[in-house]
């Protein structure tokens, strides 16, 4: 889903950033949020809901709805839409219990 060419915007090839999502290695680009990096790889689903086990992904895209909440090792709960990816980050759909360190 990454835009290859555009009539008005400059599309600059950015360097790769490798990270983990649910134990899978994903390659995004520098400047991506977790949400855009996953979306560019065709992955829209970020988590399952607590009550009905339904899939959720980004909805508002600007950090208001918290539907894109996932867990970052070393941090805890983060919002995929406003979390910039960095090399080596490990994200999970579920809280694994010891995520803050």
């Amino acid at each position, binding site marked *: *889903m*990454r*835009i*290859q*060419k*555009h*009539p*008005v*915007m400059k*599309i600059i090839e950015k360097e790769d950033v490798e990270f983990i999502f649910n134990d899978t290695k994903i390659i995004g680009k520098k*400047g*991506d*949020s977790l*949400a*855009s990096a996953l*979306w*560019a790889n065709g992955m*829209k*689903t*970020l988590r399952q809901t607590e009550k009905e086990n*339904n*899939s*959720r*992904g*980004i*909805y*508002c*895209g*600007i*950090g*208001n709805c918290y*539907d894109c909440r996932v867990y*970052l090792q070393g*941090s*805890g*709960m*983060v*919002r995929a*839409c*406003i*979390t*910039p990816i960095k090399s080596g980050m490990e994200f999970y759909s579920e809280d694994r219990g010891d995520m803050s360190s």
Partner: protein
Amino acid sequence: MKFDVAIVGAGPAGLKAAIEIARAGGNVVMIDDHPHVGGKLNGQLHEEPNNGDWWIGVSIAEQLKQEALSLGITILTGTQVWSVEEGWKLFISNVDGRPLDNNMIESKALLLATGAIEKPLPLPGWTLPGVLTIGGAQVLTNQYQVKPGNRVIVVGVDILSLSIARAMKMAGADVVGIYIAPKNEFTSGISNPKELLSSFSSMTKFAPNLFMRLGGNVLKSAIGCSLAALFYPKNGMKVWDIPIHFRQSILAINGEQEVESVTLTKIDPTGNAIGESFLEKVDAVCISGGLSPQNELAAVAGCEFVRLNGLSGVVPLHDQYMQTTVEGLFVAGNITGIEGAKVASAQGVLAGSSINKYLSIGNVNEGNLERNAKQVEIVRETADITFHSEIGSARNKLQKLWEHRI
């Protein structure tokens, strides 16, 4: 950390206010929960209807940021303000709720420029991955340069949805069409094609180009709108080669785990479904329910509010110089009513100068404030984008409510 002024929100209003205050010699901090400043500017990419130039928001944001930094303005990104106390104290944390080295900021004045939030437009299937708000689609497409889908539909016909549908098409998505919002208890005016066309015809600034595309003078009368809605081409009318379906709406979004298709229906001129529904295979749905001011911190700060439909929701009650009912608390931008980036910028300048006068920073007098307030009006009159046909009368009502405040 102590400052003269703390500004929450580093979008166009916050940036312009910060620059105005710093230029006069004030010590300013801007706080934003996003990784970059610029707010909605970063996703904006559209052709200006009046002159055909391209508005590239991210370039404007970058310029403003450089100017802010050169003036010594402190910028804290990835930082959220979770509470405020008069006096002023701002309680901050990192964007994910974790502590920072400094968990509190003190300032003599506070400006809230927190912008807008999208109003939800619920329908069956709206929580499936692949369903985005139109603002979310804008950010993904223009800011991150990732298209929302290969085959996309847009729900809701308005200034934003048209602009972002075009942006997605330019990004290489097949935008199947733009459809009227579904008729339910949350969509009164916008799910009725006749009322919708009528509201467009009173948004005179946006009128020229949209009118020409939608058939011009026919829309200028109520009869004209009924006729237009009645005879509107059943296959839609194309704008920028994207079909706008005034006589079709959506009933549901379908898919097991993610968006797979939508159930569409033809509708009569008042929005009621007619005939058999049909499926369209898509992989993304972008919903435009309108914008609403984001006013939570203002509520915590204790100021009074006003609900006015022309402002698109509930805003802090404020005077013509952006001061609220709480001493030292000011507002600017979409939090004061939805009007877009150009008006937000002019309000930022006004709020900045108003704060300067309040704190005796620089040499601001009543004449300066009057001029800046007049400039906001001028920008409002000449701006190409209007979000509500009643914005002018709403602003007048707001001023009257200020004068008679509780």
